């Protein structure tokens, strides 16, 4: 265990300070029904130029985390505790003015649905140019030239004329390209992509994902990539964080987590997905039950009511005692390392054929 963690740390080429560091983040919303713990003690780091993938089902807190990083949560109804440090700057306590300087400049976001995230009232070119003018002080003319340059880069045909189009004149894939152009216009150091391809068709999704990868290579941004699709993550991310019920349950490099997963939830996700090369005679192995309510999460390990291996972890430990997630490559589970390895090889791996 410890040796694994060390080697992982050794492979990281950058200095001791990660670019984005989230420590013990807690986000709560007060609603009529009670307090929703949308994110409950989440910690992760992102290094420069790397992609962190966050996977989880709907309601696992992955989107809330990233809205909080950008300070886009509603301060009236939500409370945020913990630390978010971006390049040495603390964001949780930062004022609205400071956040404004960051948004669209150092940190940018790509939203899931480009039709609702783009304003129907302004031309695409103007929407791309606006953050550039605001953050760099460029003139209208320079900003327009920059918008055309960005549209060319993301592969919009005839960018010189399309720059004056409105979002409704673009197709779904082109709108998402325009969103990417808008996010990258100031060469951000951190890009948050919240399910950027979920609303798109597979052939367009493949284009957009490759485009993002190539642009990342060119600009060198760090990307936080949120999705529910393990296939997309496997393609995009360097590191992976699996979230369940507002907490991280497993962390590691994509290779480690997808090829030798250690948490029963990750096992469940992997074995419930049909694959193109899979054996069709074999039934899928779904996770029983449904995701928990965040109003009243289960005691102990939030996954224990759906977990098939609670008996092996010993007594009712899973129901009473919440397992912690160690640093580095780790899974928040009471099973011992030997048990996990045995269960994975004996039970789970045959299901992944």
């Amino acid at each position, binding site marked *: 265990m410890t040796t694994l963690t060390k080697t992982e740390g050794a492979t990281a080429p950058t200095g001791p300070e990660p670019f984005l560091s989230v420590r013990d983040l807690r986000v709560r919303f007060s609603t009529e029904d009670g307090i929703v713990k949308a994110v409950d003690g989440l910690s992760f780091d992102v290094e420069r130029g790397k992609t962190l993938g966050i996977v989880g089902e709907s309601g696992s807190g992955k989107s809330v985390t990233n809205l909080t990083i950008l300070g886009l949560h509603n301060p009236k109804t939500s409370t945020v505790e913990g630390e978010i440090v971006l390049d040495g700057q603390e964001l949780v306590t930062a004022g609205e003015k400071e956040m404004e300087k960051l948004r669209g400049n150092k940190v940018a976001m790509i939203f899931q649905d480009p039709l609702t995230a783009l304003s129907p009232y302004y031309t695409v070119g103007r929407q791309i140019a606006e953050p550039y003018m605001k953050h760099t002080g460029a003139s209208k003319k320079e900003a327009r030239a920059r918008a055309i340059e960005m549209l060319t880069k993301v592969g919009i045909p005839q960018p010189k004329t399309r720059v004056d189009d409105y979002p409704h004149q673009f197709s779904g894939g082109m709108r998402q390209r325009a969103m990417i152009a808008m996010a990258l216009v100031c060469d951000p150091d951190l890009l948050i992509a919240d399910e950027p391809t979920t609303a798109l068709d597979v052939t367009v999704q493949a284009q957009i994902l490759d485009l993002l990868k190539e642009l990342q290579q060119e600009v060198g941004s760090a990307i936080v990539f949120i999705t529910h699709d393990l296939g997309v993550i496997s393609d995009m991310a360097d590191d992976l964080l699996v979230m369940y019920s507002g907490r991280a349950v497993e962390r590691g490099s994509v290779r480690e987590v997808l090829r030798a997963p250690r948490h029963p939830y990750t096992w469940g996700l992997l074995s*419930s997905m049909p694959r*193109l090369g899979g054996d069709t005679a074999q039934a899928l192995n779904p996770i029983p039950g449904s995701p928990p309510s965040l109003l009243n999460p289960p005691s102990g390990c939030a996954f224990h009511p759906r977990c098939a291996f609670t008996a092996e972890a010993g007594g009712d430990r899973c129901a009473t005692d919440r397992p912690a997630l160690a640093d580095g490559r780790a899974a928040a589970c009471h099973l011992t390392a030997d048990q996990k390895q045995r269960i994975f090889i004996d039970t789970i791996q045959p299901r992944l054929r």
Partner: protein
Amino acid sequence: MSDNLTLPAQQSPAGASAEPLLTVEGLTKHFPIYGGFPIKRKVGAVQAVDKVDLTVGAGESVGLVGESGCGKSTTGRLITRLLEPTGGKITYAGHDITHASRRELAPIRSEIQMIFQDPYSSLNPRQTVGTIIRSPMEVNGIEPAGGREKRVRELLELVGLNPEHYNRFPHEFSGGQRQRIGVARALALQPKLIVADEPVSALDVSIQAQVVNLLQKVQQEMGIAFLFIAHDLAVVRHFSQRVAVMYLGKVVEVGDRDSIYNRPRHPYTHALLSAVPEVAVDDEPEDRERIRLAGDVPSPIMPPSGCRFRTRCWKAQDKCATEEPPLVRLSDSREGHLTACHFPEEPTTEARDEDIVLDPGLKALEDENAGTD
């Protein structure tokens, strides 16, 4: 290995009955577009479905895949006769139901049921689960032995819900449970054919598998034929014995599962398969071809002439623009594997010597980054 396992299995249901349960020939649906002032005239048509041929055998499950806007849902709705076809012929168990009236359809309606995509909008929020599942029996005047309520409880148990929840309302259930209610409703009349329109795409990953397994159990145990409409190629592959690939209102390729997924011939099927993101669970290097198309699907209002895929195809030539390729069996394809293409691809999905990247922005970036590396 898997070839040998799957092939005989999928031929037995088709071969058992000489006549397929459902035959669709030249099915066409054009939605008119009206414009002009003050008198509105028909100015065009959305050619949602255009001359689609399809057969579903008794007890067989046929998958229909394609991207959004390719007409797969419209095809499903035409077959269940929720929409009136513009042209073509739908034959169900020997009866022509293309333009059958309400009264003529009544006995057939109970045999063709539908499962909808959105479990939130397809259940009436004012009715209890019991009422929802019971009403198809009431409408069709079916009195099962032991009463309708007993049958509803049996159905609830069959789909994995607690029969005690008979008197609950849909909002008390989660998305996956609601989809189970939808399945129970479809099963209430013991149908012979179920048209499932994206039955799992609104559900979370961990719940999808539960519903897919339930549908598979229903299909195998009760011998119900399925037309499984979905955009997720892996789910369709898991569920269907035969698969039809649609593009812009046309079936471009149809065949048994192994032919479509391992020996595709149409360039679009190749592109579609290569675009599916796959989880790498083992260390074997990926040996899949990489094809990146340019742009999006063209508008079905003015589809390209000839072959509809030619505007995004890397093999397109003049012939493709003038002549529409027929859906035929190619010389080295298997029986029943039909492809509509003038210049078909090699029947393999293995990696090519050179990736096909048609997207201009992506191509420029790749060349640039390859140069700097």
